[in-house]
């Protein structure tokens, strides 16, 4: 990057691109997990990140959410720098600040708040948009009560949106697996994101559930005007849903383009199936 220090917040929001990542690198000691990756997410699109196990997908994901700080590179989101550089020290926005800017996520291995009700899980997602302070809570001021009423109402709307209406009182851990996946998406939507990051949303689902989830993700995009970044192993999902696909291998982008282009790319076939298969 340039020698001049990057300002804390804000470039002009890009008209077309929601996320713009340039030369993003992450090293863990001697291991380069992600190497100089350029990556864009156009507004309103569904973008997939695929690659073999250990290719650096989740590492890249975690750099967007602020869980990891890149070793080098820049990531901007909707006119905000997620990564800043002061001297030669890189800083990331904290995950909660990233969430507040409008990035919601789910987890590969479901991480719901198990002994909280489904509704309360969603209300935790609403946390950033509730403004009452602890003293409001102690005194139960009218503004706080109104906000709690709102959070219940909005939580129930979101439960309905993800198809869990009437199940708000059940503990998250007692919901069936598919419903837990949906609840996690509901909780992410409660943060009112512009970008939804889904980490293997169909892992562990059978083919009919997978098809249902795929249709659901597509409907979310149109109904909520979201952009979606997907990490997925199931190629039927990736190929069926994505506008663009980026393939990572050994931390580098080896292919990028529409699903059809990526599918035909010999390097992708090689990365997944080995050299022998590619040359056949």
């Amino acid at each position, binding site marked *: 990057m340039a020698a001049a220090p990057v300002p804390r917040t804000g470039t002009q929001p890009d008209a077309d691109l929601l996320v713009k990542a340039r030369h993003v690198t992450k090293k863990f000691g001697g291991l380069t997990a992600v190497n100089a990756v350029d990556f864009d997410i156009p507004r309103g699109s569904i973008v997939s990140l695929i690659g073999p196990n*250990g290719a650096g997908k989740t590492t890249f994901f975690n750099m967007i*959410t602020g869980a990891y700080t890149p070793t080098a590179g820049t990531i901007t989101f909707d006119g905000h720098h997620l990564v800043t550089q002061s001297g030669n020290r890189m800083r990331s926005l904290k995950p*909660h600040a990233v969430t507040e800017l409008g990035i919601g996520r789910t987890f590969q291995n479901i991480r719901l708040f*198990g002994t909280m009700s489904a509704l309360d899980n969603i209300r935790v997602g609403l946390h950033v948009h509730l403004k009452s302070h602890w003293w*409001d*809570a102690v*005194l139960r001021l009218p503004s706080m009560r109104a906000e709690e009423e709102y959070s219940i109402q909005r939580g129930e709307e979101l439960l309905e949106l993800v198809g869990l209406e009437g199940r708000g009182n059940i*503990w998250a851990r007692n919901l069936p*697996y598919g419903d837990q996946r949906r609840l996690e998406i509901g909780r992410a939507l409660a943060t009112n994101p512009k970008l939804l990051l889904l980490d293997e949303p169909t892992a562990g689902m059978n083919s009919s559930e997978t098809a249902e989830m795929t249709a659901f993700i597509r409907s979310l995009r149109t109904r909520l005007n979201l952009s979606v970044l997907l990490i997925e192993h199931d190629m039927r999902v990736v190929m069926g849903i994505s506008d663009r696909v980026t393939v990572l291998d050994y931390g580098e982008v080896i292919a990028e383009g529409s699903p059809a282009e990526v599918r035909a790319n010999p390097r992708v076939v090689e990365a997944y*199936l080995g050299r022998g298969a590619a040359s056949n």
Partner: protein
Amino acid sequence: MSASSRPIQPGIVGWLTHLVSSALNLPGAYRRELERRRGRTLAMTILAVFAMAYPVLNRLYFQPFSRNVFPLPFPEDAVVTFMMIFGIMAIGLNIVAGFAGLLDLGYVAFYAFGAYTAAFLASPHFGSVSVVLFSNTIQGFPGIHFPFWMLVPLAMITAATFGVLLGAPTLRLRGDYLAIVTLGFGEIVPVVFKNLAAVNFDFGPIHLVNANLTGGNLGINPIDAPHFFGIKFGSSSGIAAVYLGMILLVGAILTARNLERSRMGRAWIAIREDEVAAEMMGINTVRTKLLAFGLGASFAGVAGVFQASYQGLTTSDFFTFATSILVLIMVILGGIGNIWGVLVGALVLVFVDKTFLPWLGLRFTEISPDLPNPSQFNFLIFGVLLVAMMRFRPEGFIPSRQRAAELHHAPPGQAIGAAATMGDAAIAGEEAVEELAAEQEAIATADEAAEVIDIEGPPGDAPGRAGT
């Protein structure tokens, strides 16, 4: 839900109007509550009435009966007052350890801050000055004399400030490390209070030569008793002090309950459940944990002020590690995470420690003077009780349902069964169990399948790399 039925105007005026109208509506609210949960509401009412009447009944009937007819362990007024003090502390520690899941082994430090706040600001200790403010002490009397109602908020602020100061650098630590740091803090604070008895300090405008700040081993006394409407609420007042303690305790219960049912309460529980997920959902985990620490500490501040003002003295000997552990045992035995549970834990433990064991000791000596005195073995008894509880009922007497479920950590398949018995997943029912079993199989197969990625090309030729 009266809140939803009638819109509330914003602002303080709206709140006051709402408060008045809900106060007028109270019998109606009680009737609704009675219709909703009859048994529980009736039991709570009887308990509350008994608690309010106890100090009077104790003086008029229980103590004379115990003295004259048959010896029974009825707690005396002083013991009941200490039940209130420890009840407040247990409820405060429950915010830190129960809601937010932060193990604090040095909670007694905040109790000490509260007590010394009263000792400094309501005693003749600093005799070289005379500050008498809204107090019943005569103007010009040596020392600083603030009234009790000012000491309480001041002690809350002091304790909370030190809570935040301790928490700021340490709350990034997790689990055992946090416990060790708080343990150290709890040891340091009383020692500091003990040793600030002969301070030489000369810097800037402050010149101290052999200054006795904290009274050292002797502590500070006499501390002014709480004083309202011409009545003193000190240890000599008996019943009056019990009622003052009860008012403070009810305030603590309401505060803790209101916090639990708010956005903060949900954030604390979310952090306890899964800190990473909570952070990712937009909760500022450091700030939220600091808040738990600070607010929890302020409860101990109130308890400390009340203890010092009630007893009229405070010394660093009151604030030992054993007291921290005692409060923690109250929280764990009573039911960590449940306000009513920890309250019961506090009442029972103070009763056993200060009334039941001495009473048992007297009965023993009546039989034979050679029998051991059980009150010497109080911590042994609590320890055995704790081990037994951990073995048979780790969630405590009156558990929080969430904590009970966390402690009896069953695999998801069983958890559904357990939940169904709890009447929790009545809707989910048997279908869910079957569905879940099928899903578990699906996960198992999917995990295997994930190794070989389904992409067009000759299958089984070369499997995908296993990474990292």
